[in-house]
């Protein structure tokens, strides 16, 4: 399968990419290409121009600035999985990156491409939601910071405008909180049927705060608010009871892998597993 014809430009800077996007309604950015090229091969996407931003200087790597870790948008899963700063201070991002696709996919795909693509089954959006991450985008009018809770607007629909380039993702240094990303899929390389991201503050077996976000339980990643509320102050059996509320307020999809009821059950079971793992169990 070969994509339809298009023009190809390599952007030397973010500004150049913005300029090219502004002048062409059907232009699209390309990073790793591992979401976009499959769509172009099947003609589900037919951009007239691709602007390659994978090699724009300054858009890769992880840097610590006080209590924040700034992840370059064009950092690949492979590099996130191994990044020592991330593994020490926000391991859930490295853990989720290591569960994306397979090694070949992780050598190509980027965090920024995934955030912009907004596939409800992709892994990193729920992690960013649980972390209260910030998405940094640059457009003709300057730089804008978007809260993760505002970024994933709908089915394959992010809050980015056509002429905005995602430049970084900012996540907090998690020192003192436990975290885990638990993904359930059928075959090794598959997307999640359901997955759960949990960030938990606790001491002596009692939870003070749990932030829980679910992958593929709706058209966007969602926070499990009822479970989160019940987790605050919970210990022992009360944690399991709180996890049983994880599917409240969700509208899970039905597909060849699973029906909605099965997904609801997975959300409850995986939430308990994720919270227990985040607490070091």
């Amino acid at each position, binding site marked *: 399968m070969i994509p339809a014809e*298009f023009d190809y430009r390599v952007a030397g800077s973010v500004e150049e990419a913005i300029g090219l996007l502004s002048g062409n309604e059907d232009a699209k950015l390309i990073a790793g*290409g591992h979401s976009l090229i*499959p769509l172009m*091969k099947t003609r589900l996407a037919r951009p007239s121009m691709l602007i390659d931003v994978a090699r724009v200087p300054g858009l890769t790597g992880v840097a610590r600035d006080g209590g924040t870790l700034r992840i370059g948008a064009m950092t690949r899963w492979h590099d996130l999985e191994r990044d020592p700063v991330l593994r020490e201070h926000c391991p859930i991002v490295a853990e989720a990156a290591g569960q994306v696709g397979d090694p*070949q996919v992780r*050598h*190509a795909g980027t965090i920024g491409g995934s955030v912009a693509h907004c596939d409800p089954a992709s892994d990193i959006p729920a992690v960013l939601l649980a972390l209260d991450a910030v998405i940094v985008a640059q457009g003709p009018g300057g730089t804008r910071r978007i809260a993760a809770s505002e970024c994933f607007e709908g089915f394959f629909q992010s809050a980015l405008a056509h002429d905005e380039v995602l430049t970084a993702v900012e996540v907090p240094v998690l020192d003192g909180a436990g975290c885990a990303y638990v993904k359930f899929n059928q075959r090794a390389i598959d997307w999640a049927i359901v997955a759960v991201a949990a960030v938990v503050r606790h001491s002596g077996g009692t939870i003070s705060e749990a932030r829980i976000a679910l992958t593929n339980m709706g058209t966007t990643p969602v926070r499990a608010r009822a479970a989160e509320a019940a987790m605050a102050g919970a210990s022992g059996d009360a944690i399991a009871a709180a996890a049983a509320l994880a599917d409240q307020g969700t509208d899970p999809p039905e597909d060849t892998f699973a029906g909605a009821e099965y997904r609801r059950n997975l959300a409850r079971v995986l939430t308990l597993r994720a919270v227990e793992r985040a607490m070091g169990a």
Partner: protein
Amino acid sequence: MRITLTVNGRAHEVDVEPRDLLVYVLRERLGLTGTNIGCDTSTCGSCTVHVDGESIKSCTLLAVQCDGRAITTIEGLANGALHPVQEAFTSEHALQCGFCTPGMIMAAASRLNEVKDPTEEQIREGLEGNLCRCTGYHNIVKAVQKAAAAG
């Protein structure tokens, strides 16, 4: 568009359309048909090659994305003698029809570059992106273990 690809150590200047996938340029323009096309949907791994030393599925990559980069295909893996993974695939009977083999070997070689002394689980994880329709996984894993031990 004119691009430069260094394939198996040799620089090639090729005229490509932006929409040409790397796997087609390798097979049809450069005549390197060792890299197979199985699914054409980034699922099976039979098109795996190395770009700058790392495994990637060449059916899901535009040739223009690789401008200026170094590509290794199965034809270029042997360096005088067979690569240890190739050697072990023959001695451990790790291929049946052989269709998945070039991709399996490229994926395994990339894994061994990244993880020295891998556990069986790490080898299996490293091959997650590759399917063998003859289902010969057991001997494939044994071969990669043998290659890892050989260094």
